[in-house]
């Protein structure tokens, strides 16, 4: 395959992507318009090697000239990204063999920690299914440039020291692992980042899903999740845009997502003209009842109900909190906003909604992905996600956002590998990741830059619906992906 052919293929892929953008929701269009100048390349996830890419080119041709101008710009950038001289070809036996640690002619060795035992296994326990779904998909098509993906997963029990030491072991493995994709065990990863194992080892960690700020600030980590701080600002922005001025927040004071998110929420609300944060309460998780509700109600209670209340809690804590709330004179549960209540991604699950029941009716739950719910199921990317995962584990809960995040993270990683091509090195992977723009049905478009690893800036809301007092399902709130109003702002402290 000659360089010219490669450029042509890349151009075809861009065309394919542009054609999809043209049928997006208004929010996404706004987003695309914002990002088009800065985003060097936009590719669609289905782009695989050789033959599939040709299909993509065909699709691009069918899509018309909607993005002709953008495509031209993109082609230039694409040429730059793919400009490194390639002595090898993207085919088995001609890929250059062992181009870097963990890479051989037939294999790319990858490693990751995950959680099968201990506290986090309830919501992170199925993440490996998402990763394995992508891997088996790719391997069944012959791998990437003739190299199969060889993924090693290890359970670290969500214990930070153990997970960090596993990651350090992976980095220093004598045979070598090329990269660490996804790493669902966030505690260990966070510690490994703070301990500078990742930075010193210069090992790419692609597609992480932990949402904590450390992951967005390391030059070798590229998350796919929307940061907790972003989600909280988006939540506040949406509420403000719908007319709310009096805000309240209750957050988990034990775990870091609570502190980080609450800080960002507080800072953002204080900047909004006319808005004020009336209640700001951090609570410890796992109490039998919460007398703290009394204080919350003093600030945000029956006398002057807050217009918007954000709940940055884990499901169990949130249920105890809601149960400790009294009702107002109209019989409505206190602790909810008069114009809306928002929950962050930890609450985005059916079990929470079921356990909460009537009081949570109308509550908005936010996620950074397109969950397989309602109309979103019709999106080809989402449908493919569901099918891929069910093929690996028919019993997997596909609405688990951590599972979907792991799938997306692995997909992004695979995409980057493809774009690096046969001469696979960590340096080139970093180069590619640092200029990757990735478009899929699973999330808002991801745009990475050298000092911009907070690629996913969008979050959208789903409404909890109840019928006869019990949970009847989630409904799309129609917000679309709203973008973080102050991207890249990770407040210190917390």
């Amino acid at each position, binding site marked *: 395959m000659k360089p010219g052919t490669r450029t042509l293929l890349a151009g075809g892929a861009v065309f394919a992507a542009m054609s999809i953008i043209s049928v997006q929701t208004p929010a996404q269009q706004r987003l695309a318009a914002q990002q088009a100048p800065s985003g060097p390349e936009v590719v669609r996830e289905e782009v695989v090697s050789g033959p599939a890419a040709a299909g993509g080119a065909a699709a691009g041709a069918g899509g018309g000239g909607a993005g002709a101008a953008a495509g031209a710009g993109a082609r230039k950038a694409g040429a730059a990204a793919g400009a490194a001289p390639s002595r090898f070809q993207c085919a088995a036996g001609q890929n250059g063999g062992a181009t870097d640690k963990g890479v051989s002619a037939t294999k790319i060795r990858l490693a990751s920690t995950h959680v*099968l*035992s*201990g506290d986090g*296994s309830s919501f992170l326990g199925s993440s490996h299914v998402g990763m394995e779904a992508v891997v088996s998909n790719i391997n069944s098509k012959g791998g990437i440039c003739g190299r199969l993906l060889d993924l090693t*997963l*290890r*359970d*670290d*029990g969500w*214990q*930070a*020291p*153990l997970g*960090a*030491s*596993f990651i*350090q*072991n992976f980095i*220093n*493995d*004598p045979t070598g692992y090329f990269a660490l994709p996804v790493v669902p065990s966030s*505690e260990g990863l*966070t*510690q490994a980042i*703070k*301990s*500078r194992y990742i930075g010193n080892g210069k090992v790419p960690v692609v597609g992480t899903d932990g949402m904590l700020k450390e992951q967005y600030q390391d030059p070798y980590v590229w998350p796919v999740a929307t940061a907790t701080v972003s989600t909280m600002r988006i939540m506040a922005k949406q509420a403000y845009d719908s007319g709310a001025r009096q805000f309240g927040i209750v957050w988990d*004071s*034990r775990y870091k997502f609570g502190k980080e998110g609450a800080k960002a929420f507080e800072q953002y609300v204080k900047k909004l003209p006319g808005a004020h944060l009336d209640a700001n309460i951090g609570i*410890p998780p796992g109490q039998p009842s919460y007398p703290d509700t009394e204080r919350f109600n003093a600030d945000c209670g029956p006398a002057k109900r807050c217009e918007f209340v954000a709940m940055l809690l884990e499901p169990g804590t949130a249920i105890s909190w809601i149960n400790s709330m009294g009702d107002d004179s109209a019989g409505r549960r206190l602790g909810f906003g008069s114009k809306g209540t928002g929950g962050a991604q930890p609450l985005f699950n059916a079990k929470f909604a079921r356990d909460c029941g009537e009081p949570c009716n109308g509550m908005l739950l936010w996620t950074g992905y397109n969950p397989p719910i309602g109309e979103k199921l019709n999106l080809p990317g989402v449908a493919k996600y569901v099918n891929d995962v069910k093929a690996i584990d028919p019993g997997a809960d596909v609405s688990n956002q951590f599972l979907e995040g792991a799938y997306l993270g692995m997909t992004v990683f695979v995409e980057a590998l493809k774009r690096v091509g046969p001469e696979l090195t960590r340096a080139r992977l970093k180069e590619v990741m640092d200029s990757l723009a990735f478009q899929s049905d699973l999330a808002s478009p991801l745009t990475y830059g050298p000092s911009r690893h907070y690629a996913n800036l969008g979050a959208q809301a789903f409404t909890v619906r109840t019928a006869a007092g019990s949970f009847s399902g989630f409904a799309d709130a129609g917000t679309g992906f709203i973008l973080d109003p102050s991207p890249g702002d990770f407040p210190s*402290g917390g």
Partner: protein
Amino acid sequence: MSAAAVSPRRTERVTGSAASTEAPTVRLSVAGRRLGLVGVLAFVLAFPYLPFVPFSVLGNANVAAQYALVSISLVVLVGWVGQISLGHAGMVGVGAYVTGMAMGGLHVGFPVSLLWGAAGGMAVAVPLGVVALRVRGLYLAVATLIFSWIGQEFLFRQEWFTKHSSIQVSPVGKWDTIPYFPWDDRKVFYYAAWATVVLAIYLMANLRDSKTGRSFFAVRGSEVAAASLGIDVMRTKLAAFAVSGLLAGAAGSLILVGQQTVTPDAFTVERSLFFLAVAVVGGLSSLGGSVAAAFVFAFLNEAFFRVKAFEGYLTVASAALLAIVLLLYRGGLAQVPADLAPRLRRLRVFVDPVLAPVVSWTNRLGDGLARWVGAHANRLRGRLPSGERPTEVVIQSPSALLALLSRLTGGRIKAPRAVVRTEAPLDLGPPKDEEPELASIVSLPMNRQSAEPGSVASVLPFNQVERKPVVMAADRDERRVVLAAEGITVRFGGLVANEDVSLKVCEGEVVGLIGPNGAGKTTLFNAIAGLNEPAAGRIELFGQDVTGLPVHHRALLGVGRTFQAIQLFAQLSVFDNLLVATHQHNPTGMLAHLAVTPASLAAEAEARQTVQRVIRLLDLRDVAHRRVADLPFGVLRMVEVARALVTGAKVIMLDEPASGLDNNETDRLVELIRFIRSLGVSILLIEHDVKMVTNVSDHLYVLDRGRLLAEGPAFLVAQDEAVVAAYLGRAVEHGAAAEAGR
């Protein structure tokens, strides 16, 4: 027997190996064994750089060092002093965060920051110890649990305390760092971590084999008994807390430096329980066991990293390990060598033929090496004390390092030692492996010539004061009063146990205190010893008012005692039980014990000699090295009296010493009491057995319902009709009935 081999510890080893004479056909020579040791040492030192050692194994070797240090810290507190801690993660956490503060805030470099961490751990352990002083075992367990809880919920979540939880370790040539060592490198850290652990083991082994260590064991065994021997129980506990906190803090420091980041989740209550599990699996009182258990738990991590099939069983495995050890193999890993040795010996028949050539080559190589090393090291000899006379007792330094050096050079390098003169060579009796009949081992020296007055002075412990048999004045009022209680009243709530009781013991007297059950004898006894606080009255010892003084102060003034329910230290040998009693005559302190100073060695030698003398005097040689818990009751009574004697007390209080003894044993006890009296020691005796008391006492006090009923010379009181009618009659009948029942 060379002088070096005379020290008791040394002798134990010699007899221990003598017992295994039947087994081996092939053996490493001494030099060969030294060579093996050098080989092991070389392996340990080269470990990080051995090509076949995987990176993950190295990492877990470092984790093992951290576990080992925490476990040693627990061994000191829980294993040796018996103070249970369910909150060690709290101390470890404080050590880690204080280290972070020092490194991040004050820019202290690594080796020095270890001291900061250790100090931090100590700073929280000591206040916790102060609380612990006031309470009993399980209250302490809750206190430490609460401490860990406060750490988990409050301290480790405060911004000001944890803001340096991530640190940059590599020092860049500051004054307090060793420049250009990348401490965050696993290989370099291995040396730092294990050097810390080895140093900790060295210091703790020194401590264990010293007066301080014995006072730890004594407090664990029985606090009242420890206090009665002059040990300050409070201070001992506090010292243990300080040492334990120091080690835990150092471990926290290592954890932070090894990981460069810590999270509060690493120091939770569950973690406290985990640390305790490591110590328990190690055997809870053994330093070597701690290291072994640390490796076992670190190996679990390795197994979970290596074997995919184990996934999901991480939490189950460590819980199961603790349960298995606790229920099925209580001695923990420390017990493995003892259990395994006989089996290995049996295997030798098959292994020896294969090993023979290897062994013979090693021996040759080792002998050659030893000669070479010895020749070169001999030049150092001039500086060290030399000359060995058979009339000297030599206590070798318990320091492992120096002993190792000494052995490596075939004794050419001498470990520092203390030389103490004795009149005669010591005889430790038959080796402990030859078990004598225990039924009648206690015979008393009165049957022998050794009790003649002339030899008594030389045989008595700590005879700073000249002692001869006291010539008592005929009139009691002219005798020197050594112990006096005046108008003692003791109340428990509304119950009056003693009311206005006065008694005195004069020099050289045996004073009996009798009365029916519930008369308040033991209460009075405890008031005199300092265990009860009297509501009114005054107690004098040797003319000094001691009414408010704690038990150990009174002991230091020269009062010894025994207990109705025997309070020997069950886990210690008879020899060590008596050795504890030398506590008050050993002037050296904990720091001297840690550093094994010559002064501490000299004091140790003197203490051992004293115990030797008493053991010979009371003919306890047959049981000297047996664990107290394994001995029959009659022997224990004698040992307890012997222990009181070793303290050098001038008054000994015996609380129902004859209870539980048969006639034969009681007769011996009477002989012993008379013998002690012949040494010039006064005795206050509580007894049920009226016949025995009147037989042995000079003076009798009769107590009834908390009041003094009668007093006088024993023969007069025994004949006093009122007393006989009212009390003794009953008591005598009772005693006779009890005897008939036997």
